[in-house]
């Protein structure tokens, strides 16, 4: 029988995965979605609350400022190399490491940082595996918030996987060939459990000719599709307007792609131009198997996706690449990648500025030069964010034409040993011009030829 504990209402603690009241600053306020649903958190970038040392911003390579971002990636590394039941101190991760590097400020902000980066379930696991003498310095609030987030993601994952089961079954019955993309595939082929890989949407790839049949099938199982993309700048987008349905209290979003790569990117990956054979994804006992891109196309997709314009490159995407290159190292055709898609190799190497290599550097994935480019972990804001940013035109031009060096290397596939001069002077301005032109054309087309679902 449990101990007769005194009952105090304040021991029935209330936690919030998000803490909007911590954030007093309104500079660069972001409102990210929780990856698995429509509950929003408010997350301010920049000014820290006056009563806290927490500065939830990316860690500049050269500043030496230790932030919750550093703690998050440190825990990601630790969690990946420590496996139960023998979770003992790993060389390089002695107790002093945690005590010396990180203080209450970083632990305090960890949950918020983890949720932005989509790594809360992984970090909750890593924290649980810390030695007891280290766990004692982790504030209960930080530990519990991560646990709560992990629980939420587990429930959301269960709901999402049930929907994917149904989609795969119905698509097969309907004769529509479908591939699982990104998280929907990685959750099973790369992660021990799907709940460890949060995702905002279910992304699937079908042939362009099958898109409307795919919509019809999805609608039959309860998805409701938006009639058109939210932005008039979308134009001929690579996926249809998203569909949503409710499942077990969660909003499940479905994106039906005809191309894996967005129109802003050069190149395309469709069912008609795959580089390598597909791989089968075993989704667990009694669940329908899925198909996913083969290793080469998967890496092409994941590297391009990771370096899409975003304020801060999300750790979950870098983690995907980090783990994928190690897990499937012996199956990947590295000479093919190096000769046909060298930008993929560059991106995989750039990940190593954030997460250290899990294997010894070799001829293809050679060690990256140190110190690395500036702005590690930072990205270029999307055009829409730049346009709407509450800053002057000079700052906006800088955001447009002077993004972080690390991101430029990743987006354009320029090895970190090489200069960005040509990129900054010619390649990037030309790319920005192309993006703007595409959007203007999309707006003009939408005015004169309104499009709806299925017109893509």
């Amino acid at each position, binding site marked *: 029988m*449990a101990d007769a504990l005194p009952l105090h209402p304040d021991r029935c603690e209330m936690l919030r995965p998000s803490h909007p009241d911590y954030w007093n600053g309104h500079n660069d306020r972001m409102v990210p979605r929780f990856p698995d649903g429509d509950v929003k958190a408010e997350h301010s970038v920049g000014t820290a609350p006056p009563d806290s040392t927490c500065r939830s911003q990316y860690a500049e390579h050269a500043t030496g400022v230790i932030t919750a971002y550093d703690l998050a990636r440190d825990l990601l590394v630790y969690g990946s190399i420590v496996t139960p039941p023998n979770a003992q101190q790993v060389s390089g991760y002695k107790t002093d490491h945690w005590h010396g590097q990180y203080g209450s400020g970083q632990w305090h902000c960890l949950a918020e940082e983890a949720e932005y980066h989509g790594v809360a379930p992984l970090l909750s696991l890593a924290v649980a595996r810390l030695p007891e003498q280290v766990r004692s310095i982790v504030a209960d609030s930080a530990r519990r918030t991560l*646990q709560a987030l992990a629980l939420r993601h587990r429930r959301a994952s269960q709901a999402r996987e049930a929907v994917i089961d149904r989609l795969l079954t119905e698509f097969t019955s309907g004769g529509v060939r479908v591939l699982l993309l990104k998280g929907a595939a990685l959750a099973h082929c790369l992660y021990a459990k799907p709940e460890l890989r949060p995702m905002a949407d279910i992304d699937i790839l079908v042939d362009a000719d099958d898109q409307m049949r795919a919509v019809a099938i999805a609608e039959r199982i309860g998805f409701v599709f938006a009639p058109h993309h939210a932005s008039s700048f979308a134009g001929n987008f690579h996926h249809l307007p998203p569909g949503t349905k409710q499942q077990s*209290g969660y909003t499940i979003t479905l994106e039906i792609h005809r191309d894996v790569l967005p129109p802003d990117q050069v190149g395309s990956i469709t069912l008609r131009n795959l580089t390598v054979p597909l791989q089968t994804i075993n989704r667990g006992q009694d669940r329908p198997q899925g198909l996913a891109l083969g290793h080469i196309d998967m890496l092409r997709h994941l590297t391009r996706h990771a370096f899409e314009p975003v304020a801060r490159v999300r750790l979950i995407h870098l983690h995907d690449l980090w783990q994928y290159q190690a897990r499937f190292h012996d199956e990947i055709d590295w000479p093919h990648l190096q000769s046909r898609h060298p930008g993929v190799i560059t991106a995989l190497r750039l990940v190593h500025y954030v997460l250290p290599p899990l294997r010894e550097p070799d001829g293809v994935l050679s060690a990256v030069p140190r110190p690395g480019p500036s702005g590690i972990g930072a990205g270029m804001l999307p055009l829409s964010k730049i346009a709407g940013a509450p800053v002057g035109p000079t700052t906006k031009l800088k955001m447009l034409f002077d993004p972080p060096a690390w991101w430029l290397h990743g987006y354009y596939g320029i090895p970190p040993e090489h200069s960005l001069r040509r990129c900054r002077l010619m390649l990037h301005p030309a790319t920005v011009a192309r993006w703007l032109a595409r959007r203007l054309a999309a707006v003009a087309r939408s005015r004169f030829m309104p499009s709806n679902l299925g017109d893509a």
Partner: protein
Amino acid sequence: MGVTLDCIPAPIAGVEVELVEGEYLMYQPRFSRAIYLNPTAALIWSLCDGVRPLREIVELIRAGYPDAPPDLAKDIVDVVARLEEHGALAVT
């Protein structure tokens, strides 16, 4: 309405309680929040079945914990009131 000993508390549909590393974590998907319950609060929660009035819950706990403090009833009412406030219980 205020919570009294004559009220009947019932769990809200969709609220789940899990034992996580020795602690009880209560969660509902539509809320961006989770609640940690100490063991006694978890016990109270488990006794709220939509049939049993609060008065009976107090008596059950008092029978199981003879050394409980004299203001046990007030504490239980307070816990139930907080759980109702946070959307985990409905009280009729």
